[in-house]
């Protein structure tokens, strides 16, 4: 006897023995449950997780001074923690940013839309630093306290220029 399981919307089915006592069976069951949990995650949650995985990679790549080939400071655990908070604070409807470490050891999030629109967000200490170029002479930049939520000015920029189609 086996259990057949259909994943909603995907057209895929999984099946495995209802009562599996062997180690292999338990292992397969655990793996399938993990896959199911991942498939059921909302898409927005997935991109946040992907960005956080990238942050982990960045910590590994940039843990030593001079990681940029010059004299960049190591990316600290604190920088990564605030970058994770920043990712959590992003609204749902925006395009997925790039995670970019900076020579100061801070980690920024960047959005680029062609050769004209470029926006960057970095948490520096307790300050949220933002800067953007939006074609021609249109530039906006500033610094605000970061308490885990994005300021209105930043939300407006993201909504205006970097919304998912």
């Amino acid at each position, binding site marked *: 006897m086996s259990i057949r399981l259909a994943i909603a919307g995907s057209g895929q089915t999984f099946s495995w023995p209802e009562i599996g006592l062997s180690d292999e069976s338990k292992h397969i069951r655990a793996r399938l449950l993990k896959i199911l949990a991942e498939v059921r995650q909302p898409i927005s949650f997935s991109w946040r997780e992907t960005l956080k995985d990238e942050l982990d990679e960045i910590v590994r*790549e940039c843990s030593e001074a001079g990681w*940029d*080939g010059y004299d960049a400071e190591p990316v600290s655990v604190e920088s990564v923690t605030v970058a994770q908070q920043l990712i959590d604070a992003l609204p749902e409807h925006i395009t997925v940013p*790039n995670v970019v470490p900076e*020579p*100061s050891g801070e980690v920024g999030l960047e959005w*680029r839309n062609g050769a004209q629109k470029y926006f960057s967000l970095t948490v520096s200490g307790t300050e949220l630093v933002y800067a953007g*170029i939006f074609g021609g002479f249109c*530039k906006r*930049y500033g610094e605000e306290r970061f308490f885990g939520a994005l300021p209105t000015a930043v939300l407006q920029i993201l909504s205006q220029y970097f919304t998912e189609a």
Partner: protein
Amino acid sequence: MGLYPRQFYRYFLSILLKLDRVPAVVSSGERISRFIFYQRHIKGGEIRAAAFLPSRTSEDTSVYRTDGCSEKKVWLLGNLFVERLRRDGRTVLARGDVISGTVFGQDLKIISTPRPHPRHAVICNWPDDKPQQLIKAMALALKATLHLNQ
């Protein structure tokens, strides 16, 4: 080529390249090259602003004045005078070329600092303010052309 002949060849090449002479003052139409070592700074075929941001210790951005240099010579400069001076074995992945006028247009300066090579220079006069630094680095990144080291 054996180890010693190769080392001698590189040494000879670096001596030869150091004979290069450029004007002390950087003019507004010169090509300026920033060698890039970190792959996330060129992700998606685009140069990131972080590649141009100044170092916190020196407060400037190290570049080379590559106007009039052949492609081969530019990469040799990167190899012999940037990459080889490092001890961690990192290799130059790419470079971002920008015209000096673009740098001057951001109220930044390019000062010739002929060590380790006569063509070496630094982009300086960066503001202390981080948002303003970012805006200027972004403007350079948007105007820069990416060349991969193949």
